[in-house]
């Protein structure tokens, strides 16, 4: 008994160390900063400051944009994952490979490239001009940010859904068909319910980074669109108010926790699908 106890903790040791050093302690620091002011006395003001119009607006906009990009990602990713499932093993791994390929390049560089493409005199508008089509002005608008989010986070939606779909036993689908279900019924009664863990995990993996991003909004929003991530970043860098930054981060954590709770609720017993 004692031996298994030791073994269990020995094996989890590196992970425990990692988690304590790089997750627990930093979170404690954030909570400490968030609940104190510059003189170190306890205050709730940093957290309450989310109600000021400029913070609240940024939070609202962040929620809206990340929700929009999550929905778009889902709408794009699910059919793609279904197509991938239908392909032969060699073909689909090739397409998955193609999907992951852009991730070999730095995320900042790719976003910067989109800036050059979408600019007023950028690649896209030059092309449109050559084709005598009206020019598109989406750089520095919320649309450009949604676009950037979808572009950057789409693989994180495709992969978990694809992983779940590929694991669904074909026999289950055959059984449904044998019992007289048409393909629409099979999809809604069998495939979709079985793929929910992947969908949930995909949603989490797109929604959370979208909600907290400040780089995408900075690069594609021309600094005109302030998301909550930008405000927090500014508090930590330019304004040098770590207390306020931490307080706002704690508010953001609430939304992330809500998302996680939902994930766990939907995902009971199917933990394997969550990446």
């Amino acid at each position, binding site marked *: 008994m004692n031996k298994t106890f030791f073994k269990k903790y020995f094996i989890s040791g590196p992970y425990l160390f990692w988690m304590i050093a790089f997750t627990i302690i930093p979170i404690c620091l954030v909570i400490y900063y968030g609940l104190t002011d510059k003189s170190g006395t306890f205050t709730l003001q940093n957290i309450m400051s989310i109600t000021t119009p400029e913070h609240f*607006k940024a939070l609202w906009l962040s929620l809206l944009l990340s929700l929009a990009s999550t929905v778009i990602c889902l709408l794009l990713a699910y059919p793609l994952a279904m197509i991938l499932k239908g392909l032969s093993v060699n073909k689909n791994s090739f397409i998955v490979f193609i999907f992951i390929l852009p991730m070999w390049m730095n995320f900042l560089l790719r976003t910067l490239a989109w800036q050059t493409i979408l600019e007023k005199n950028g690649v896209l508008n030059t092309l449109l001009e050559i084709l005598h089509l009206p020019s598109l002005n989406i750089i520095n608008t919320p649309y450009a940010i949604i676009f950037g989010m979808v572009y950057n986070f789409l693989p994180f939606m495709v992969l978990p859904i694809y992983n779940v779909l590929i694991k669904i036993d074909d026999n289950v689908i055959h059984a449904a068909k044998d019992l007289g279900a048409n393909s629409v019924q099979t999809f809604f009664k069998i495939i979709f319910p079985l793929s929910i863990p992947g969908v949930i995990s995909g949603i989490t993996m797109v929604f959370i980074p979208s909600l907290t991003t400040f780089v995408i909004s900075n690069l594609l929003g021309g600094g005109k669109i302030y998301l909550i991530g930008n405000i927090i970043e500014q508090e*930590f*860098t330019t304004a040098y108010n770590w207390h306020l930054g931490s307080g706002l981060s704690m508010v953001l954590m609430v939304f992330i926790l809500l998302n996680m709770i939902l994930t766990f609720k939907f995902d009971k017993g199917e933990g394997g699908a969550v990446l």
Partner: protein
Amino acid sequence: MKKNKCKKWAALFSCIALTIFSITSCGNKDSSQDSSDSSDLYIYNWAEYIDPEVLTMFEKETGIQVHYDEFETNEIMYPVIEAGAISYDLVCPSDYMIQKMIENDLLAEINFDNIPNFSNIDEAQLTSAKEFDSENKYSVPYCWGTVGILYNTTMVEEAPDSWAVLWDEKYKDNILMQDSVRDAFGITLKYLGYSLNSVTESQLQEAKELLIEQRPLVQGYVVDQVRDKMIGNEAAIGVIYSGEVLYCQQENDDLAYVIPKEGSNVWLDCWVIPKNAQNKENAEAFLNFLCKPEIAVKNFEYITYATPNKAAKELLAEEYQTNPAVFPPESILSKCETFHYLGQEAEELYNSLWKEVRSK
């Protein structure tokens, strides 16, 4: 089956090996940071603010290894120095930030005996440096200039001469603003006829309202990108530091620079040595190297920011010496002001007002 397993193990092994390799190869570079080896020099400078060849020349001449990092605004630099996690030996902040660093006891006095070439620095610049470093003890002037408007002559109807052009509806979506608290407010306060060091709340509120009014007209709030965007004809008007002008004009003939009639900010960036510097003597050796006229000229030709080095200025081509964008005449300079450090309270006020502007 067994062969397959072997393959898997090989793949796993190579994955791990690759990860470890990449981690350690990054680590090597950084680990030298801890050693207080006297042949290192850690420099923290504005982005693209030195000729990289100057660094190589210095390394060759002295055998000192230069480690070079860059920042984008004074406000980003300050917390890095204050936190002290990385001890830089030389930093290049602007006037008001140097004052703040002196007031917060972050700087070491420079030993000018080690910098004989310091005598090349223009007396006039040393006088203006006294505004923030009252005894010229902490700073060695590096570059100076003004803030003004860069405009594209083909895209504006008439040459602007006032900050008012930044609020002109005609140029909606064609204006680039500086994403820097002090510059944005400084411009607006000057336009309103106030001092750009104002701490009067009503004046600042007025400036804030004006900046909010300007927001829909602005294409973007950027720092270093003004240059590239103006060169690429992305915007008609941009707020820019005078030192970028020569480069922009080399790349795009249609660009012109003006210091608006209301006056502007004249700034002076200086080298300072933080208190926790590990290689102070190397830093001073580097400063001495930079103050050599021929090095200052070489550096000027690369970064095109006006040099306070008198001996170097005399070596410059006539067209540079008389170019009002680079070395503005006294009549214009007299209308310009230097930024002062305004204290923590005022700083917080500025920041919160700026946040209101930006998140509107």
